[in-house]
């Protein structure tokens, strides 16, 4: 059964690695639903968060292929309920629509969104949440014609009390040294 999985990849910061990882999906004609890359808590180590909808079997195989890339430190996969995750969305609406009634303001309050910037012509609203939530706000706001809309890729954390990356690096180092003896 296909379902959403979050794949997390820790890697060295090497040019070209993004391509090496994405071609693992494209080669199998698997669509990447969302992709976020940025530096992790440890300098020089980057974290990829990739969302795909696939069967568990296929996900395991692809994670195996990612893990195998020389510059990848470690790759994991989780189902949505195993992680805490968010996306961020920005909406641009006409400033007039706030003057005409308090509907927009109510929508923003109810959704737990906030207003980032107001100009004479437009207002930028920001909301973080799951896709269905940011999408719901979009549908609501669109009564007033959303001029522009953007949603980010997903960021996600596991429910582990600590990030295990630094321990992992230490263990890896000890392991590799022991192998060389």
């Amino acid at each position, binding site marked *: 059964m296909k379902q959403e999985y979050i794949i997390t990849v820790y*890697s*060295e910061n090497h*040019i*070209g690695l993004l*391509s*090496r990882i994405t*071609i693992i999906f494209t*080669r199998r004609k698997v669509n990447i639903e969302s992709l976020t890359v940025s530096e992790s808590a440890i300098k020089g180590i980057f974290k990829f968060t990739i969302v795909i909808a696939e069967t568990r079997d296929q996900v*395991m*195989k692809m994670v*195996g*292929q990612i*893990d*195998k890339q*020389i*510059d*990848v*430190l470690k790759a994991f996969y989780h189902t949505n309920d195993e992680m805490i995750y968010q996306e961020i969305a920005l909406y641009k609406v006409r400033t007039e629509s706030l003057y005409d009634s308090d509907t927009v303001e109510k929508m923003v309050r109810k959704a737990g969104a906030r207003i980032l910037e107001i100009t004479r012509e437009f207002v930028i609203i920001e909301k973080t949440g799951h896709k269905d939530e940011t999408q719901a706000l979009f549908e609501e706001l669109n009564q007033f014609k959303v001029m522009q809309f953007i949603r980010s890729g997903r960021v996600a954390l596991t429910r582990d009390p600590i990030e295990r990356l630094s321990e992992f*690096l230490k263990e*890896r*180092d000890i*392991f*590799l*040294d022991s*192998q*060389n003896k």
Partner: protein
Amino acid sequence: MTNKRIPGSEAVILSLIEEGVDIIFGYPGGAMIPIYDSLYDYSDKIKHILTRHEQGLVHAADGYARVTGKPGVCFATSGPGATNLVTGIANAMLDSIPMVCFTGQVGSSLLGTDAFQESDLIGITMPITKWSYQVTKPEEIPEAVAKAFYIAKTGRPGPVLLDITKDAQIAMLDWKYEKCTKIRSYVPELPVDITHVKEAVQIIDEAKKPLLLLGQGVIIGSAENELKEFIEKTGIPAAWTLLGLSALPTEHPLNVGMLGMHGNYGPNLLTNEADVIIAVGMRFDDRVTGKVSTYAKKAKIIHLEIDPAEINKIVKADVAILGNSKKSLQLLTERVKENSHDAWIKEFKKCDDIEFEKVIEKDIHPTKPGLTMGEIVRMASEKTNHEAILVSDVGQHQMINARYFKFKHSRSHVSSGGLGTMGFGLPASMGAQMGQPDRTVFSVSGDGGFQMTIQELGTIEQNKLPIKIIILNNNFLGMVRQWQQLFFEKRYSFTKLHNPDFIMIAKGYGIEGNKVSKREDLDAAMQKMIDHDGPYVLEVTIEKEDNVFPMIPAGASVSDVMLEA
């Protein structure tokens, strides 16, 4: 090591010397001139083989790597030189061949400008290299080369590519070299987990009909002896994959032959009877498994493999033993009980007899007038006392080579397995001959594939490589024609070849040759070729429409293996 200032180009050559490289297969061009200039100063330390086409050099490096176990080293210039390597790199990737390719690149200030002879080689080769890196500064060279060699040859080997911009070749650096011994993001092999070994031992000890499948992982891991000890202690029959050939002597009593689409009858048929399958260093290629959903359903699968991504990729393993096959086999042998499986092995013998009567006899002792590939290949093997190296091209003859050539020594069979690259054979045989200068090397190709890299006759002559080149000429793209005959109602759509006079071409290159089309002339012609001091081309006209059997039709189950049409 002195800290002298040298140009990047010289650092490339010195790094190769540090890595113990003594031969480079290459072809120069504008973006490689500085490196070639430095090579000129070290030609007493490193040999360079100039081929006639970059595809030739990359396959030669591949052949060299297969017979020696050392990484093959390639040089090619930017743009067309580099793109001509692509087929050979893909070939090496699929067959896990250690290879380090150096490509020249336009100056770093010109990257991305569509400069003359710029091509994005890193981008093009990303899916077909184990690792690649673009060097734009001279001081990166020693570390990049050290990493490249470490990655190419450790763990599951594979091709790596270093793309070096011209300015990085020209600019100076402080020379200092350190070998790479670890990369924190890369675990070449995992230590063998003893609990999995114990689980496997229990299954093996209880097995009634166990079958071992040996792949190239045995050869890569130098585990030939460990394999022999394991099967001899347990009495388990072993079948080899195309790339596992020669890991065990052909005549070993427990060797039951080849798996796969054109493998032997017994190991294919009986895969589906086995109760335990021990797969060692093989990856369940679709040419081996046939239809996966009906493959080895009665068997518990024990998979010994160095690459974790191969576990459960095609066939689910009941027990996976990750790590180096040499260590895994040792640990198994220490723990398994001594055993024998005579009744089970008799079943293989029975199959052998059936295959002999229906297929082999006709292939190697034909009664019809036309010459068969089988009798020629077997004769070559016998006349060299099964001591020679066989390098194959791709097609019907490749399967016949694998079926009828016999081996006494490991690393003696060179064949393009995963990619099935026509044109591989002749250039790969050059690398094989250079890697094993004292052994007889046969290059056995079809008339089609031979013409894909025929220009390498020039390289063979220039380097006086005493390769015994056999062209099995059926005037057809035989393997495709066979499928057209069997599955497309003999509609021979564009598979017929009008061939040149191969011997005249050989002579044009200064290579002796002879053409044979009658059985009574074959023995003497073959002997003359083998006795000839130097390269020799023997063209044999063979039966046009012979087919290779047994055959597992595409998509069928291994137990549907056909002995005749």
